[in-house]
């Protein structure tokens, strides 16, 4: 999966539009993921997952920041997320299938807040970007 020039500019445009809402989107993405895919909760036994949870908000902020970082360094996502990649491989070991689930929920959040932003072409680019991020985060698993 290669990010072409148009994909990169589509992704940057999305994140520019999302702007300061990124943290909020991160939290909602997690909330949706835990609701739509309950098996993902197994990675957070130490969290309060009730609606409005401060821990979920805090973690959503982290996830969003990572996506923003990847978008800002879209020519070298592997470099930008190298430490996170190590963390996921050595400590977190989240099964690779779950990155697709997170990606789906992020797309749902973007779509529900910005219907006109997520044209089919932009959707394609964002989906590719999210796949690329997932690939980087699981790259060092074995």
């Amino acid at each position, binding site marked *: 999966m290669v990010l072409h020039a148009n994909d990169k500019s589509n992704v940057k445009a999305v994140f520019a539009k999302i702007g300061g809402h990124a943290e909020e989107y991160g939290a909602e993405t997690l909330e949706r993921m835990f*609701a739509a*895919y309950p098996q993902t909760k197994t990675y957070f036994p130490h969290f309060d997952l009730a609606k409005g949870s401060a821990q979920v908000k805090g973690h959503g902020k982290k996830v969003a920041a990572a996506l923003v970082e990847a978008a800002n360094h879209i020519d070298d996502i592997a470099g930008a997320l190298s430490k996170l990649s190590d963390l996921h491989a050595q400590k977190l070991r989240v099964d690779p299938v779950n990155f697709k689930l997170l990606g789906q*929920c992020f*797309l*749902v959040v973007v*779509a*529900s807040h910005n219907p006109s932003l997520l044209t089919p072409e932009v959707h394609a680019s964002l989906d590719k970007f999210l796949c690329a991020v997932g690939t980087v985060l699981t790259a060092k698993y074995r």
Partner: protein
Amino acid sequence: SLPRLLIVYPWTQRFFDNFGNLSSPTAIIGNPKVRAHGKKVLTSFGDAIKNLDSIKGTYSKLSELHCEKLHVDPENFRLLGDILVIVLASHFGRDFTPACQFAWQKLVGVVAHALARKYH
């Protein structure tokens, strides 16, 4: 949902060689065969919703068709289901709550499973 599937996951176009011009997103969105087929697919979803207690039954013949005649990899049903959820989110915005998404992700999963059930 169907034009979006063909644009976001272009390899899904392999099943629609006889649909004419699929050369660009604009072509795909404007293609009358794509629109007609999209309508068929969504109508079939509507049938599932009217018969939520017997989805397997509703899709039994369609499953055989997709396996024996159309030769569609069931993974494509999952891809279409995810796209449909995103389209619903963009139409209903905040009303498409996490609980709503949960129900719909389950429904599209059940439909995909039902369509794959008669594969052999």
